[in-house]
């Protein structure tokens, strides 16, 4: 079945917010100013426009979201800084060979702490650990939560209510408290590596994903376009691959992106609180915790790790917003 071709005729006169062109119109950019070349074409020509692949449409829409594109660049730069930086940079985050409490200078761009750690090397390592944990949280929660939600939504009945009550139950307890208690229980058995923190926070985020996915499965199977394509004689496999998965995929991917931002905030909060990543290693949360008493005396200890968390989370949120526009245009009807 070909892509539903847009039959939009930019008549948004009566609406208040000036947008009626919702839909996945591949030919017309929703919200582009009416007197552009494309729109003044004869209507018949619209149907002869070459079909664009979903991926290319999505890329086009993503690239139009300027904040998201800039944020993606920032994220790539941060990832390079965190993963390639330590290989190139002269100082090691563990070494105490710097002067103590040096202000940021050419040798120590982010200064040093009282023991002579190079703060930039620490921030590199901290960013690396925090990014790894955040990604693990997002991947684990998305995979586990999707399976959880799909099983509940497909099987329905008592399996569904059992699984969803379990999700409700987990969500009634503050995630941070649960994570801290479980991390503490693991502290004696294994050295709290970054992946343990990731697994704990990821499992505790899975119920959120499960709720979203289940709701989506339940609503998607009742949609008219599914019914329509079934009426046209499409097989179950075709419905799944052409309609269910692309539609569900978009929301899951956007959700996973936002989970990365939530993940880094969760990990840093847990480490700040003292139950996350532990001392010989470091994380951005641990660095803020160490620097919190020095906001005015040695501000570089406090601001650099904090700003890295904010910039990272903010960029991920913007990218998530851009992905939502790109993959799921119906959700952002109110945007231009």
């Amino acid at each position, binding site marked *: 079945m070909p892509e539903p071709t847009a039959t939009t005729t930019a008549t948004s006169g009566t609406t208040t917010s000036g947008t009626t062109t919702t839909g996945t119109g591949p030919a017309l950019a929703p919200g582009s100013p009416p007197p552009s070349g494309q729109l003044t074409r004869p209507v018949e020509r619209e149907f002869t426009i070459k079909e664009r692949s979903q991926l290319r449409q999505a890329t086009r829409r993503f690239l139009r979201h300027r904040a998201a594109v800039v944020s993606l660049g920032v994220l790539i730069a941060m990832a390079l800084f965190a993963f390639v930086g330590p290989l190139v940079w002269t100082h090691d985050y563990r070494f105490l060979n710097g002067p103590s409490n040096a202000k940021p200078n050419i040798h120590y761009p982010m200064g040093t702490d009282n023991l002579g750690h190079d703060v930039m090397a620490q921030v590199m390592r901290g960013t690396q650990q925090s990014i790894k944990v955040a990604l693990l949280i997002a991947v684990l929660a998305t995979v586990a939560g999707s399976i959880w939600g799909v099983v509940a939504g497909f099987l329905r009945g008592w399996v569904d209510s059992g699984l969803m009550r379990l999700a409700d*139950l987990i969500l009634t307890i503050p995630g941070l408290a649960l994570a801290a208690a479980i991390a503490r229980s693991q502290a004696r058995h294994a050295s709290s590596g970054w992946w343990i923190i990731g697994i704990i926070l990821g499992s505790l985020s899975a119920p959120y994903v499960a709720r979203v996915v289940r709701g989506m499965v339940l609503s998607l199977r009742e949609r008219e376009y599914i019914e329509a394509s079934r009426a046209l004689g499409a097989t179950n496999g075709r419905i799944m691959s052409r309609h269910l998965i692309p539609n569900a995929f978009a929301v899951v991917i956007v959700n996973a992106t936002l989970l990365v931002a939530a993940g880094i905030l969760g990990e840093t909060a847990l480490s700040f609180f003292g139950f996350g990543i532990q001392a010989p290693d470091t994380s951005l949360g641990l660095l803020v915790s160490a620097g919190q008493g020095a906001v005015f005396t040695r501000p570089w200890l406090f601001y650099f790790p904090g700003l890295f968390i904010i910039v990272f989370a903010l960029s991920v949120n913007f990218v998530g917003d851009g992905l939502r526009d790109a993959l799921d245009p119906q959700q952002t009807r109110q945007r231009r």
Partner: protein
Amino acid sequence: MFVFILRRVLISIPVLIGSTILVFIIGKLLGDPLQDLRLRNPPVPAATIRAEEHRLWLDRPLPEQYLLWLKGLVLHGNFGPSVNPTDSIGGELGSHMWVTMRLVLAAVFIALVLAVVTGVLSAVRQYSPFDYTTTFFGFLFFSMPIFWFAALLKAGGIWYNQHVNPATFFTIGDRSVDAQLPNHAWWTTTSDIIGHLVLPTIALGLAGYASWTRFTRASLLEVLDSDYVRLARAKGLSSRRVLVKHALRNALIPLTTVTALDIAALFGGAIITESVFQWRGMGALFQQSLIQYDVYLLMAWLLVTATIVIVFNLVADLLYGVLDPRIRHA
């Protein structure tokens, strides 16, 4: 209406029972409460350890421990034995809970009011400078780690006290020690408590504010785009009347559910905020339970927060029914 309330209340009972099981499992996972005693050097006599094991019910099978704990809880309101023999867990929780509730409620109230006001304004003036500014700050606050902002606020308060006007902000503790107060009249203590609340409330409220204002904006924009609002406009109602009478109510009803779902996260944030501002609230108690492996204190803590969250959800559910007749009669 009565049936509706009754049904909702009954639904939350199994959730409560389920949470006692979950909480018990988490508590037992935490570890052996006597591990410090066992490792002590010189060694503690075996008889003492056995007596402690007996006091903490460790010499019984797990299901029996659970039933004992549940029986004490339901029949006597007793949360079980603490690692510190002189502590009563119920008493500790009772005194610490209100400190935290004060913070959470103040943060929810202020964040909600501000979120609705700015969310409505930015939806009504979509794409205005005001809208862009609040959207940007919404994103920013949403991405800001609460502990970092709390530490920044605390340092800012200290700086202001030192350089501009001494003793403007309270930066440590949930209230002053009695000896520091000039007298013990109720207004002195109340204003003292409110003074201590200011900075932590801002820190805690920020994250809630960010997500609620974005929700309000999105929800109101969707309603303003709907057919019945267009009809209301078409038949000549003033835009103010359309907004107040038709749009706002429908747009804001879902906010009750969203707020209730965020309460658990706010408790998590409250633990962090309290630790930054060195409050003696639930956060300190929680930390103590983990550090001392005080299993029953942890269970009690988790159970009390879970119950508070369940109650909040119940209230939101009921409120939703009151506000939206379709739910009530469904």
